[in-house]
């Protein structure tokens, strides 16, 4: 039984047109032109309880609009949506009780007071039973190392500490579903790892369904087994991360350092991705040209001082999909 069921979600925005500069601003005082933007255009997916899904897309693709509809902030223009059996746009408060949200760019903690005061207020807002509150606070203190700064005013916390506080705050009421919007943005490597461990732990131990929206694809690689890719308001891929890697992770990069910077490098089976001085990056399709073949060809034509092969990472894969478009099954040919 799916915990989140979205069918053909659509969202259309309407806004007033405003021209540039002083003239445009004055003109806008008197005009009333409206333009329509389709932010989400027929998105459908379904999530089982306990899944941890990466929801990815370039800026402006419709990611945040979808999340807003899921969390009850926006009402869809059309389509159906059920989250834990509740239609968010019809029963906002009931839906809110079932979810936790972490906005990476914005904190829900109270700036001026110690962290624990924020938790107290949230306890009242979500009506968390005493024993659950105590248990959760203890668990989070351990997992997130909160005790150290529970008494510090939030405005004095470092970004990493504040994020950890925000995570605990989102989980305090044992939500069935948690939305993470850019949860590791701006964090250092150590903090990111701590957050990822926490998220994985919560997902594993409590079976919390998690939707992760992020530009940091290392998050996705570490946590998600399934990804949904959205572009221009529509889903272009919905499936296992592994399959994506297999389908689209077929290219590799050969980095060649030439002995002679003037040397022209033009080999069959590979394209020059970039060239900086005597360092040339060649892109090739593993299925079409083997690494061994390419290296042989390169060495036949030029004098080399260094070679390096770079495996595709999820970043490159996703970038490639957005620039080339997704074709199911075929791995695409290099341009």
């Amino acid at each position: 039984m799916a915990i989140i069921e979205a069918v053909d979600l659509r969202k259309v925005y309407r806004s007033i047109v405003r021209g540039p500069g002083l003239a445009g601003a004055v003109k806008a005082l008197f005009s009333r032109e409206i333009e329509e933007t389709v932010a989400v255009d027929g998105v459908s997916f379904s999530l089982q309880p306990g899944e941890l899904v990466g929801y990815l897309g370039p800026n402006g693709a419709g990611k945040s609009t979808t999340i807003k509809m899921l969390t009850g902030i926006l009402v869809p223009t059309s389509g159906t949506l059920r989250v834990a059996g509740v239609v968010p746009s019809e029963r906002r408060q009931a839906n809110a009780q079932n979810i936790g949200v972490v906005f990476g760019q914005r904190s829900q903690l109270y700036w001026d007071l110690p962290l624990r005061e924020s938790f107290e207020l949230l306890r009242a807002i979500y009506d968390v039973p005493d024993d659950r509150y105590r248990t959760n606070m203890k668990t989070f203190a351990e997992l997130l190392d909160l005790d150290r700064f529970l008494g510090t005013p939030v405005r004095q916390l470092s970004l990493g500490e504040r994020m950890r506080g925000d995570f605990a705050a989102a989980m305090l009421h044992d939500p069935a579903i948690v939305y993470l919007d850019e949860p590791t943005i701006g964090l250092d490597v150590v903090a990111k790892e701590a957050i990822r461990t926490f998220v994985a732990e919560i997902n594993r131990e409590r079976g919390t369904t998690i939707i992760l929206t992020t530009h940091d694809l290392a998050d996705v690689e570490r946590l998600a087994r399934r990804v949904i890719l959205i572009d221009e308001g529509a889903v272009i891929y919905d499936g296992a991360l592994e399959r994506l890697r297999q389908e689209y992770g077929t290219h590799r990069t050969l980095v060649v350092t030439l002995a002679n910077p003037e040397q022209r490098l033009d080999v069959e089976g590979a394209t020059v991705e970039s060239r900086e001085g005597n360092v040339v990056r060649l892109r090739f399709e593993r299925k079409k040209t083997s690494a061994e073949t390419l290296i042989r060809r390169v060495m036949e034509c030029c004098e080399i001082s260094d070679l390096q092969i770079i495996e595709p990472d999820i970043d490159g894969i996703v970038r490639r999909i957005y620039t080339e478009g997704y074709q199911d099954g075929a791995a695409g040919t290099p341009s």
Partner: protein
Amino acid sequence: MIIAARPRFRWAPYRALAARAMAREATYRFDVFTSIGSVLVRLYLLKMVWTALYAHNTTPAELPLHAVITYSAVALLMGLVMDIDQTRALHDRLHDGTIVTDFLKPINVALSFFADGTGEVIFHAILIVPSLVLALLVVHIDVPPPMTLAAFAVSFVLGYLVGFWINFILNCTAFWTLEISAVQLIVTWLTDLLGGEIIPLVLFPVVLQKIVFVLPFAAMFSTPLLIYVGIISPSGWAAAIGVQAVWAAVLAFAASLMWRAGTRRIVSQGG
């Protein structure tokens, strides 16, 4: 390349700042219309209040009803321009720390705030024109002879400068303490009351009159207004305007001292 000679003064960056301020004010269409609307309402209010006050009490000989209504209406319009805190940006940027980037730019920082504020002032001054037209419809404002108007104009500019320096000094305190908006509002209120914007100073109890005429606030509103309605006669113009000029100079000097002290503090504290 080392720039040894003092660069020529450029108007362009300050003009651009002023234009940006005007565009910024114009984007809030609702604000614009409500401002004009509120002037209308206020003019109506002052007319009704003074009419009611003059109806059942002994009226002052030197200030008949039409004169006091003129006084209050002109004071209201003056207030539109004078109550704008031109250097508010200074406080705001000190508050959020972005002022450091201002010092990195190759323009005079104090002037840049002045330019920004001037854009705002000009925009609102332009708004006065429709407000003035409405004023003439709602209440009857006396129009004095041209010489008086000229003296009024000079006095108004000086009064404006006095107000500008007071605000500047206030905003400079933001170099030391951060929360000044309340203090600023307090000062605005006091200057409005003690400056004669709300009630002509000549109507104050005699005891209080002795005090308020000595304060710089009187130079902001009362002096130009009393010239306008003729209570300060042509023979008294020179003295009155002279006092204003002295206040303007004194406050300008105090402001420059504060500015220098404040910027020194910023530089030594590292922003």
